[in-house]
């Protein structure tokens, strides 16, 4: 029997497999050259980019929590122009889909960043980061208000023909509303989800463990929340979804696919084990063979939901 097909189509973008490295956990991709074969990834998402370089937040920026990681990096980055000039040509050497995580302090800046990439070769799609909890301006303010979400996505839509993938915030009570706002504004896919707003306190000093005070929680601790939200978003809109949150094994990835995600992104697990892609790909193939399936797409959205009393 031939090995099962792992390739998927995501908003018109062919991914050779459904595993994509999540924004902010894979640098600009080039950091992993030589450590792992980037061509093995279905794709990768760049660290969040603004028009200009950013310092990010003061340190400490990371704190470990049970089965999780709390971060307040604050979108330190080189800016979109340096990325397009210095990084994209290097990434072109690898056979993988490159997504750019687009940030902004204002609706206009999101559109400006997207426009700056319009002629850059080697960009498969734009992920619109309306959900970063670690910046004072922008970020969550856009992702927590359906009208603002719509405004950002619509503004970017006007300046680009590239596939647009807004990244949803889990820090809302009804994520389906936000998914619909994105779809109405012309989104081609959705990333589900960014980090959960959290806090950890050093009891000896009675100070927050992060210099920013609060941070975004990621890792296995958030997986059940992210799976639930993926399921809700899949029911609300027809768009392809990147399931994101605490994935570190094939079974974790399958939870999201079964809940309705077309592909998944892997974040914190990159830090824990750069070999995570090999393990998950092998596990996915095993699963498909074991279930007599020839194609990973046959798993998507196959949740057997019991009737609720």
């Amino acid at each position: 029997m031939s090995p099962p097909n792992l390739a998927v189509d995501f908003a018109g973008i062919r991914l050779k497999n459904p595993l994509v490295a999540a924004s902010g956990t894979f640098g600009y991709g080039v950091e992993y050259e030589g450590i792992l074969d980037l061509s093995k990834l279905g794709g990768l998402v760049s660290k969040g980019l603004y028009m200009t370089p950013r310092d990010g937040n003061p340190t400490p920026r990371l704190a470990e929590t049970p089965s999780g990681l709390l971060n307040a990096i604050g979108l330190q980055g080189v800016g979109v122009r340096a990325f397009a000039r210095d990084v994209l040509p290097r990434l072109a050497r690898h056979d993988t889909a490159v997504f750019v995580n687009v940030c902004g302090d204002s609706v206009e800046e999101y559109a400006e960043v997207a426009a700056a990439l319009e002629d850059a070769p080697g960009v498969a799609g734009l992920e619109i980061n309306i959900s970063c909890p670690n910046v004072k301006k922008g970020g969550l303010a856009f992702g927590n208000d359906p009208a603002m979400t719509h405004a950002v996505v619509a503004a970017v839509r006007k300046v680009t023909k590239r596939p647009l993938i807004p990244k949803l915030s889990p820090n809302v009570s009804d994520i389906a509303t936000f998914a619909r706002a994105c779809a109405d504004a012309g989104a081609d896919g959705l990333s589900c989800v960014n980090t959960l707003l959290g806090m950890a306190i050093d009891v000896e000093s009675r100070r927050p463990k992060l210099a920013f005070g609060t941070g975004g929680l990621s890792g296995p601790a958030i997986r059940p929340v992210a799976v639930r939200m993926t399921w809700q978003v899949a029911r609300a809109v027809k768009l392809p979804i990147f399931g994101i949150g605490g994935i570190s094994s094939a079974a974790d990835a399958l939870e999201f696919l079964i809940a309705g995600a077309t592909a998944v992104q892997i974040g914190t697990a990159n830090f824990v084990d750069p070999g995570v892609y090999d393990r998950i790909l092998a596990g996915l193939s095993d699963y498909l063979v074991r279930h007599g399936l020839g194609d990973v797409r046959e798993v998507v959205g196959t949740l057997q939901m019991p009737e609720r009393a």
Partner: protein
Amino acid sequence: MPTNRDVLLVERQALGGPYFVLSFGHPQVAREGRAGQFVMIKAGLSAEPPLRRPFSILAVDPERERFSLFVKAIGPGTRALCALEPGQPAQCLGPLGRPFTAPADDEEPLLVAGGYGIAPFLLMSRELRARGATARVFYGGRTAAELQLREPFAEAGVPLELATDDGSLGFHGRVTGALEAHLDRGGDGRRPRLYACGPDPMLHAVARLAQRRGLRAEVSLDPWMGCGVGTCLGCVVKIQAPEQERWKYRCACTEGPVFDAAHVLWPGEERSAAAEAGR
């Protein structure tokens, strides 16, 4: 090139108290590891704590494809590592980071360590020896019990100057005091070149001393690290080279952990630097 592998513990040596020397099989670290570089490592496949931990490379054995670490067990990650039995697995990425730079022939290499900061200096002593130079190592701690890594230096014939805060062993006082005493005696006559690894206040003291005496110094910083390869941006430190108008956050994992002491913006000194920039 940093290489990620599942490795096995091949030997564990319990020194006094919470101190252990752990040896693992890893051909790339064994061949390529240089003094000041580190590995990111985690015991077994346990879920907790989630992240790997950084440790300086203590020694390498290219023939047997092994390297070793000097680990102080202080929390969940280090305790899990020190509880490994020979034959048990760990996950390891390395060698990582920028090593110490070699001294010139007319420089006297003075290696200054606090606590587990001694780790990179065994390898450094051996590297210097291979180039025909002898290192002088200053090794400080609060008490004699903290100075557990002495034998390998004696075996290697490297002079070790000990210092304890309580006077229980060696020089009574800070390790920088022992260093200053040596400098005041005129050292070995060559231009002193300082290399330091240990707690931040000690590194800061070495940096001030170097500035005061006009000496070159390199420090190995140990901020909290998430990934070891420059992607999480958790371990950034404020660095300002003389030609730069303003500091920049640099990843200690990829652009360090070894930095020129004069380029580090130490906590408490930031205000004056900022004020200077504002003038």
